[in-house]
């Protein structure tokens, strides 16, 4: 993609050392049919045949290999910037033994450096047997718990294939609070088949009653990663299982764009009234609780990543690991004849035109918006005329463009004119 009309200097690809690190932990007790992330469930995740130990060893090896490369490129930790954030995503990272989490954080601190006050997020599921021990996690260095609540409606939770109850969500939040974890976030899904404005309002209210520091509200989005060509042998997604495909096909008929937009507007009003500030299309936070890690993505800062299906960016190249656990383990587990290698995957070099388009689309997602020089803004005027006329964009006096409330739900209409 090219976009000659924005300033090329603004986003010319420049390599830089990472300020953030993503760690993908693929294990789940069970697999939810709507989820596109790289997940292995069942016997590989729990019980005598689980592969958590083998995975942990491979993950540590990958961390060392990635750190070696950064050392060679940017100098040893201490002479290059330390990480401002670490994010354990999944999967269900809270399934990892807490000693393992502690060991990984120690290794990261040692090889990458962790800045003072760094944000260390761990995703947790609320189920009693999967939420982990919050006090031990805090002691291990976790500063932020992101809880996959998704809904407070029992029917919706069942429809989504979630294993937890409303009470489990409350218990997880309460546990995290009493353990002293500094920041607690809840994920919720809207536009769930069978949901209504009424069930959604109740879910939002129930979430607010737990007083989390941060809320991510995601539109349930039922994609087809196979059709997108993402699931080949070195693809970053796993093929969709037939059951999940059938589930999605059926579920799509229970979705409704108009209802989804109304749900979004309801939530935006209630969250604002409760003191949460909107700061990205899907994210709201109390002051001081924005996710620094996710902001790094939207600000197009460089980030390192490890684990199957994980995506990294060094300012000029986007790199991803293949999704399959077997190939991941095979590459990283040393044998008598071979020393470990980075896992297979892919990469793409971002040219400056693409970089500009990415920057525009990522920054417009946020409350910070897109800052443009007046000349660049004038050049974009024709392309943006329709979205401006339709009330999707606000222009601040300083030339900064931001999405309006309606514009957030229609942001692709803006982005597709910019890319």
């Amino acid at each position, binding site marked *: 993609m090219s976009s000659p009309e924005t300033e090329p200097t603004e986003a010319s690809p420049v390599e830089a050392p990472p300020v953030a690190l993503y760690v993908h932990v693929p294990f789940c007790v069970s697999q939810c049919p709507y989820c596109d992330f790289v997940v292995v469930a069942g016997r590989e995740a729990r019980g005598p045949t689980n592969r958590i130990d083998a995975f942990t060893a491979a993950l540590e090896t990958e961390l060392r290999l990635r750190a070696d490369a950064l050392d060679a490129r940017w100098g040893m930790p201490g002479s290059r910037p330390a990480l401002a954030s670490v994010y354990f995503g999944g999967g269900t990272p809270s399934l990892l033994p807490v000693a393992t989490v502690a060991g990984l954080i120690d290794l990261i601190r040692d090889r990458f450096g962790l800045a003072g006050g760094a944000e260390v997020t761990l995703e947790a599921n609320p189920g009693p047997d999967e939420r982990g021990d919050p006090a031990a996690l805090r002691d291990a260095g976790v500063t932020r718990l992101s809880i996959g609540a998704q809904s407070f409606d029992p029917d919706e939770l069942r429809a989504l294939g979630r294993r937890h109850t409303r009470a489990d969500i409350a218990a997880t939040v309460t546990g995290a609070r009493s353990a002293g974890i500094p920041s607690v976030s809840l994920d919720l899904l809207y536009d769930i088949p069978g949901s209504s404005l009424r069930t959604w309002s109740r879910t939002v209210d129930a979430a607010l009653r737990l007083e989390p520091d941060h809320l991510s509200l995601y539109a349930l*989005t039922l994609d087809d990663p196979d059709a997108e060509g993402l699931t080949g042998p070195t693809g970053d997604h796993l093929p969709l299982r037939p059951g999940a495909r059938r589930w999605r096909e059926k579920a799509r008929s229970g979705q409704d764009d108009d209802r989804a937009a109304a749900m979004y507007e309801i939530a935006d009003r209630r969250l604002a009234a409760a003191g949460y500030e909107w700061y990205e299309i899907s994210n709201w936070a109390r002051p001081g609780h924005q996710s620094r890690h996710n902001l790094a993505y939207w600000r197009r800062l460089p980030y390192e990543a490890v684990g199957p299906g994980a995506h990294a960016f060094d300012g000029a190249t986007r790199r991803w690991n293949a999704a399959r656990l077997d190939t991941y383990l095979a590459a990283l587990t040393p044998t008598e004849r071979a020393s470990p290698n980075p896992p297979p995957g892919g990469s793409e070099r971002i040219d400056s035109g693409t970089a500009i388009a990415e920057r525009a689309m990522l920054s417009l997602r946020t409350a910070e918006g897109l800052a443009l020089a007046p000349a660049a803004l004038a050049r974009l005027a024709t392309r943006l005329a329709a979205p401006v006329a339709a009330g999707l964009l606000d222009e601040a006096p300083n030339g900064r463009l931001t999405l309006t409330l309606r514009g957030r739900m229609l942001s692709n209409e803006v982005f597709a004119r910019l890319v």
Partner: protein
Amino acid sequence: MAERIPQERLRNFSIIAHIDHGKSTLADRLLELTHAIDPRQMTSQVLDSMDLEREKGITIKARAVRLEHTAHDGLTYGLNLIDTPGHVDFSYEVSHSLQACEGAILVVDAAQGVEAQTLANVHLALREGLTIIPVLNKIDLPSAEPELVMDELETALAIPREEVLLLSAKEGTGVPELLEAIVDRVPPPKGDPGAPLRALVFDSHYDPYKGVVVYVRLEEGTLHAHDLIRLMASGAEAELLELGVFRPQLVPVPLLRAGEVGYVATGLKNVREAQVGDTVTSVARPATQPLPGYQVAKSLVFAGIYPISGEDYPLLRDAIEKLHLNDASFTYEPESSIALGFGFRCGFLGLLHMEIVQERLEREFSLELIASAPSVDYEVLLTNARGTIHVDNPSKLPPVSDIEEIREPWVRLSVVTPAAYIGALMELSTNRRGTFVDLEYLDPTRVLMRFELPLAELIVDYYDQLKTRTAGYASMDYEEIGYRPANLVRLDVLVAGEPVDALSIIVHRENAAALGRTLVARLRQLIPRQLFEVPIQAAVGANVIARETVRALRKNVLAKCYGGDITRKRKLLEKQREGKRRMKRVGSVEIPQEAFLAMLRTDES
């Protein structure tokens, strides 16, 4: 090449028949019996060499073949079989094929009986003064009723039953007798081989190496290889590249004489210079008068033809020019439309002709095409004595205030049907603004009905309806009977206030409201939601007669948790961008081309 057969032993004939009455099978049999074709190379329907012809079971382009037959008198006769198209749309070509003959075999299915086109083609042949050899085919069928059909021939065409031959082309019975009848009954051609050359062009095709190859029947004179020739209507001159006869492949000969049928490779690059009906003469010794009957083919049905993908326009232009070399009976001129881009306004002999031209363009040139709704040619009398204009494209109709009167072409329709369907056909035709003229019993169970109705009503889906309502039994034929005034209006479809040119149609005022409602309801389903509410209206002049609304889009967002996978997000957006680029713009509304295609493809009813 055998020795030259003298003129008195030449017989030029064609076969006229209704579709499926066995014309092509009979031609195959004749070829076999006269050894024109090795039986091992025999494919079924030899003369129908176009794929389309075999599939549709019809003959589109006339073809010719030279047969040699040794008759009972022991002499060898040269028989030129000139095949004719079997559909009403091609009556111009039929008439020139018949003009090249002295006789015609009339093939009637012994089980089906006389059909509407049979009647039309026999009248055409009689007008040309041809000797008719009536033949009942398919007498092997258990359902054959030769006596009844002979009654019909007597009633409808005054053909005495003693003249009728009975045969089965499929089994070959009766075919040798037919060959003898051709020799006995069809008169030999007349015409002085020593007179100045006059040869009738009855067909042509374009060959990339030989240029336009015209099929000719020599009326007078002699044509030698390497003669310099002139086409009398177009004035084009050419040096002959090759001269030959059809066996049925092209076989060169040194000369052709009066009465003979053959081909002439002209080297001309443009078939418009050598159209069907034109007269070939020699430059050295030209004839003073051309042969009668040449006219520019008259288009009855008009439509815009557009490439589905805009960048194919140059290919389409090329393809149309090439196809026109083979079929000069359609007309074309460049046209552009907001909805469909650049294309051509084409005129056709009829609806089947339009279908065939479109299919040939698609198949022979690998194009994907869309046609706008077919229209007829309207005569518009302007106000303030400014005269009349012709309009074949609804979007070109002047504003209502400039129109004193609109006149539309009418046709007289002949339908042959089992009597049981009289009521159904009455209803069909009166629903289409038609009037009943008269009815005639061909035999106790079958009738010939005549109606008059506007051509515009005929070209929508009248033929399909006719077949549906009569279980496929009825057949039809029509002829133009001139223009009549009518209370017609242009129905426009507006999207957000902007008219969509390709969707405008001219309709009777009384049908406008109902049709308008149907059109806007259908279009509403096809236009994706936009950033703003989009009214879709049907209007006659400034009067909106139907309205639907496409509500504003409310959600188009990537609002799922993608983590650091920016690449996937970006690719999804690039896909949306590509989708937007392919959209057509009507005012500020983005409409996928598929929406227009779907509107134009669906039958209006």
